[in-house]
């Protein structure tokens, strides 16, 4: 309740500030805090935005990108607490901004963050090795159902998006997998290509190279609609040829991960609006479109109420899983 109230207050304050102080402008260098280590998805997301801002001179102050990926990104979000009220710390992350505090005892609360915007939704697919006998996602899940706790599902980290999705899939389809956590999507992809695990739920960008090379193939996408067509990835198939999981007979409607941007709470009026405006411009450049298309994410600019609604919904969905799996720390 206190949390909700805090959030509501934050939004209210932000809304009023937009009208009152149009003119917050940065007057010294800005730090982009990345809540992942270099090379990860969040790191690419941040550096892409940095490069576009530099190219179009959207901010006339220098921007420094710093990686604070310790503790699954908690180290980066903690900046919101240590630098409370500082509008020169912009934090880049995913939905772990509001999910991490559930699963680990951390020094920050979600109310320490001021939401700025979400720029994209990263998609999840169910992948198997290219020469696996399963034609459809249904085949695979049925096989897993017949032999519970034999099929290995790989994923990045523990109690994070991949394991959450695995849990949702297990419950919805009634098939129990052995979840094996690895360091990141790259390692997971290689493990599947080498046949050491049976499946994983990598983002498109993490496995496109291996799909092209004929080492792995996607069975279905956890998205409400099929992915946009784009050029063919393999000889015969492109992203739009992959059925949604719902179409494939798996009752999981959607699972997407937002790429989000935050400020510490208590920043001066208008700061959030300033960054929102800049990010909006970023999302309209051809370079951004190219990045979205290349990494096969869904470009969707969320801010204000739309962001709030998305967060509330995602929070509820994940919380259910966390409670069922007993991951919530008291």
């Amino acid at each position: 309740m206190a949390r909700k109230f805090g959030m509501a207050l934050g939004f209210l304050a932000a809304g009023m500030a937009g009208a009152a102080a149009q003119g917050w402008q940065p007057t010294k260098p800005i730090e982009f805090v990345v809540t992942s280590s270099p090379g990860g998805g969040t790191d690419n997301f941040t550096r892409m935005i940095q490069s576009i801002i530099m190219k179009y001179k959207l901010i006339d102050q220098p921007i420094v990108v710093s990686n604070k990926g310790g503790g699954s990104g908690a180290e980066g979000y903690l900046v919101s607490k240590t630098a409370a009220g500082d509008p020169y710390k912009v934090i880049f992350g995913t939905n772990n901004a509001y999910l991490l505090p559930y699963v680990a005892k951390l020094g920050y609360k979600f109310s320490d963050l001021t939401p700025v915007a979400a720029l994209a939704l990263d998609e999840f697919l169910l992948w198997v090795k290219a020469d696996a006998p399963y034609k459809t996602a249904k085949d695979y899940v049925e096989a897993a159902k017949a032999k519970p706790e034999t099929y290995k599902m790989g994923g990045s980290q523990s109690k994070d998006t991949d394991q959450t999705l695995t849990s949702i899939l297990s419950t919805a389809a009634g098939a129990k997998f052995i979840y094996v956590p690895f360091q990141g999507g790259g390692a997971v992809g290689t493990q599947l290509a080498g046949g050491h695990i049976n499946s994983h739920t990598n983002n498109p960008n993490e496995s496109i190279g291996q799909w092209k090379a004929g080492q792995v193939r996607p069975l279905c996408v956890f998205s409400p609609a099929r992915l946009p067509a784009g050029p063919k990835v393999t000889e015969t198939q492109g992203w739009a040829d992959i059925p949604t999981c719902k179409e494939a007979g798996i009752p999981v409607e959607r699972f997407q991960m937002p790429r989000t941007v935050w400020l510490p709470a208590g920043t001066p009026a208008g700061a959030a609006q300033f960054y929102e405006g800049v990010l909006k411009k970023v999302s309209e450049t051809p370079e951004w479109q190219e990045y979205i298309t290349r990494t096969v994410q869904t470009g969707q600019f969320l801010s204000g109420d739309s962001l709030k609604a998305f967060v509330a919904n995602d929070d509820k969905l994940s919380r259910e899983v966390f409670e069922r799996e007993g991951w919530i720390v008291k």
Partner: protein
Amino acid sequence: MDGFSGLLHGFSVALTWYHVMLMVVGVLLGILVGVLPGLGAPNGVSLLLPLTFTMDPVSAIILLTSMYWGALFGGSTTSILFNIPGEPSSVATTFDGYPMAQNGRATEALSFAFLSAGFGAIVGVLLITALSGWVTQFALKFSSPEFFGVYFLAFASFVGLSGAPPLKAAVSIALGFSLAAVGMDSVSGSLRLTFGYDVLLAGISFLVAVIGLFGIGELILTIEDGLKLDGIRAKITPRDVLRTAAQMPKHWATLLRSSIVGCWMGITPGGPTAASFMSYGLAKRFSAYRANFGKGEPDGVIAPETADHSAGTSAMLPMMALGLPGSATAAVMLGGLMIWGLNPGPMLFVERPDFVWGLIASMYLGNVVAVVLVLATVPLFASILRIPFAIIGPLIVVVCFIGAYTIAGRPFDLWLALGFGILGYVFKKLDYPIAPLILAMVIGDKAEDAFRQSMIMSKGSLTIFWSNPLVTGLMLLGLVLLFWPLLGALRQRLRPSPA
């Protein structure tokens, strides 16, 4: 396009004035970040990354990789001259490099280091050129049990032979393991050993430990010994370098063995640091002058340097072909690749041959440029050593602390570095070995992850460690190395000694 024709095409891409200039700039910047402890190659490359956004991908990767080579070389310079490893992977170089310098053989040590590093790098590139297709297949065979096997082997090859009493070595290892365990545990997703302190969330950086244990610890010792750095005359004349070069062929066995270890660890990926430790351990084991190790034995410099560089270069292959970085620096570059619009993976070789082969060709050229430049900068560093300790000592302290701060920009790391400095001093005073602690910190958590992943896969059965020929071979080799000293003693007892 593969092998030779690809390489020729690559040289036509890489051999332009612009690219050679980028190599020189990259190498010089690299030497600079390599010399500063803590700044290191991964940090240096990420600082430089934004500059490359507007560049052509081939030029960008040439600049970044050249910086990497420069940093690898620079890291060895301070290891040998000051006993302060500029890079984690040059920790093992201090074991014999610094004693050599103290005995007035700094020139020799530096030349050996750079020449064998150059050799290792070239072997790494040759391997990439020749085996680009096959090697990726080999890397795919590795899963968690095999990784555990590799780390076990690294431990076994190094730990079994440390000269210290076994109990002291065990204490050192145990401390290293517990330090590595601090922070978020990726297998369970829970925090460990943070005691509620947020500053410990990201774990204890291995680099901070190295700066403290070696850099600051060494300084405290020097102050106690009477405020001087003795006997280091690092004046490099072309003749000295040539004389050392002429000795290189004598060390062919070490060079070859270390290159193999390095390439293997670069590709699988165990990383350059594990490679240099493992290679040092093996060199000591197979050397006829075992007793000299740790007191300034050339093989003790050649082995880690060769392995470090062949691992560094060959780590580029899994990065491009599998999207799997073999070192921390490769991970940063992987991010760069994606920003430049390239998709790492097996198809990169087919889709962008100009990029792949341009990079490979630049690795030959860049390493040659690096060896030449680094030999040229040595007189500069040597002259620093002639400055009295009263001036240089405080400067080293400043550099150490700046280094510790730059790793992650955390003020807390400064206190940690100081703490590790005192720990390093105490360790040396009480004759506890530092190396096992470092090794446990570097690969301890990776080994633990690999072990627990294996246990999840096998539902708790240890038989997974001999479930296929590859992992069985690794584990057997590790066990043999671990018990080698015992076997040796046994053999001596059974065979009547001739003397």
